[in-house]
């Protein structure tokens, strides 16, 4: 707890000290940042802290700088502190930090980024921790996974990233390709990935690639995207004689398809994901590949410049061959998990108010069936077969960006 507090304080101090920094608008150095605070209240299960009693454990802070060395060479970095219940403790981390070299700038753009960069997955992943860029307080978790332990890769991969953009009369074509270097994943990612809080040893990313193709017609009236990501991880339990979990490796291959239609008042967005996971090892029980899948449909209506409403329906299955979760729940005998741990469907209704371009206040209500995308870390009772299948989550969030 103490470390958490220090982390947030440090970020605040950094934010505060840079606040008044003399940066001339339009000069080579540019600074931006964001801060948001959420409140969650739920029944049945917890989400981001003890939300059944009301939780303020959703805080996102970030500050970034971008320096243009020459018109074609830039340096960019962002530090983010994210507190999200028991999942993320608010310790500041380098969200991205890279050298950006653009060798082509014109009707065809081409460039490379070397370092840690955000992985473009679907429409929202690159700015997933920035509240104002999301369509609601919580992103659709089936596509923008949090509990699944590849989030490290999803939130920022160290490696080489290339990008191409082509502006034509028929629309914009954009292609991004990222290749990550091997890395040891964070402790919290490891816990989420191995689905247990106390496995010793290291979880390593041995290989990761991501490719996204994006098409925008008429300046974005229609946006279509396809993302393929391939992640390989390896778990070594260390030197223990009888570790609770044996060594293993997992491959995760995901395809995300995205479509969006934008009018002045109305935006309709849909994204779907098929994610194939193949764990090998980890002891005698695991072995078969399985396919996770999910999608969401979302409508946003802008009443005027300040007010908007959003409605979303989302479905997710941990294994498309066992949509009810009954077979998967029995695999945990003699301590079966509840079947609702293996799917999650939900309706979301929300409203947003932007009194100024910097401020955004949001409220949303989720009616949820299932807990597959609900953090285990906030709900240890899930491991004892507990948890509620039908539940509601109410959230408020204030966010400021500059």
């Amino acid at each position, binding site marked *: 707890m103490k470390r958490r507090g220090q982390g947030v304080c440090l970020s605040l101090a950094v934010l505060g000290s840079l606040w008044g920094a003399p940066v001339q*608008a*339009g000069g080579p150095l*540019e600074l*931006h940042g*964001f801060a948001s605070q959420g409140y969650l209240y739920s029944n049945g299960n917890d989400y981001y802290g003890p939300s059944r009693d009301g939780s303020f454990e959703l805080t996102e802070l*970030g500050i*970034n700088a*971008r320096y*243009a060395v*020459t*018109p*074609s060479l*830039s340096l*960019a*970095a*962002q530090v983010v502190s994210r507190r999200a219940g028991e999942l993320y403790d608010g310790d500041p981390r380098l969200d*991205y930090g*890279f050298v*950006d070299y*653009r060798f082509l*700038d*014109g*009707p065809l*753009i081409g460039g490379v*980024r070397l370092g840690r*960069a*955000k992985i473009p997955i679907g429409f929202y992943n*690159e*700015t997933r921790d*920035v509240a*104002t*860029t999301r369509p609601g307080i919580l992103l659709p978790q089936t596509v923008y996974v949090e509990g699944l332990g590849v989030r490290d890769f999803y939130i920022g991969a160290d490696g080489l990233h290339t*990008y191409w*953009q082509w*502006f*034509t*009369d028929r629309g*914009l074509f954009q292609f991004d390709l990222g290749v990550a270097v091997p890395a040891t994943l964070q402790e919290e990612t490891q816990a989420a990935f191995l689905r247990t809080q106390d496995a010793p040893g290291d979880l390593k990313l041995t290989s990761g690639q991501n490719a996204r193709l994006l098409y925008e017609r*008429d*300046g*974005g*009236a229609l946006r279509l995207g396809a993302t393929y990501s391939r992640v390989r991880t390896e778990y070594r339990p260390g030197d223990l004689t009888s570790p609770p979990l044996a060594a293993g490796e997992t491959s995760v291959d995901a395809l995300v398809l995205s479509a969006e239609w*934008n*009018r*002045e*008042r109305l935006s309709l967005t849909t994204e779907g994901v098929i994610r194939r996971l193949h764990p090998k090892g980890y002891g005698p029980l695991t072995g078969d590949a399985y396919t996770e899948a999910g999608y969401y449909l979302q409508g946003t209506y*802008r*009443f*005027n*410049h300040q007010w908007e409403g959003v409605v979303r329906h989302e479905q997710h299955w941990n294994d498309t061959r066992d949509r009810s979760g009954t077979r998967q729940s029995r695999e945990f005998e003699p301590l079966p998990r509840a079947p609702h741990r293996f799917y999650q469907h939900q309706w979301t209704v929300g409203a947003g108010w932007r009194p100024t*371009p910097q401020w955004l206040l949001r409220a949303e209500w989720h009616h949820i069936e299932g807990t597959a995308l609900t953090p285990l870390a906030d709900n240890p009772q899930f491991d004892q077969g507990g948890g509620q299948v039908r539940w509601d989550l109410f959230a408020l969030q204030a966010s400021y*960006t500059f």
Partner: protein
Amino acid sequence: MKGNGFVFRGLKAVARMCLLSWILLIVPSANADPPPMVIAHESLQDDVITLPMLRAIFSMRLHSLQGERLTVFVLDTRHPDHEAFSKEVLGVFPYQLQNAWNRVIYSGTGRGPVIVESPQEMLRRVGQTPGGIGYVGAPVDHPDVRVISMEAGR
């Protein structure tokens, strides 16, 4: 019966209020003014630009033009000239531009535009900044600023 008449009068009043707020909030205001013009610092050589390139510039995707680092100036997103420029010249809605800026600003892949207070400041800043580009609602006469026209056949 008298009571009913009262109720219906009340309902009519509510309906009128709804219609009024619909007109005020939903129906876009008719704009008879000509669309704003694109202006640039005289360091930018071309007088003509294509719509896809203009969109690339104002969505902050393009960083330089003819080797010159671009600095994009815009008015506050609530300013009527910004809305007119966005919708009538670029053919996109202001919220789409704002989303595009947020994407580049918070992923580190680009810069945000410089937001100026008034059309006068826009003219002054574009004139002072090599590689500067912006827009104005009224015809301009400024020694360091050139008007850029859109290439036909968009």
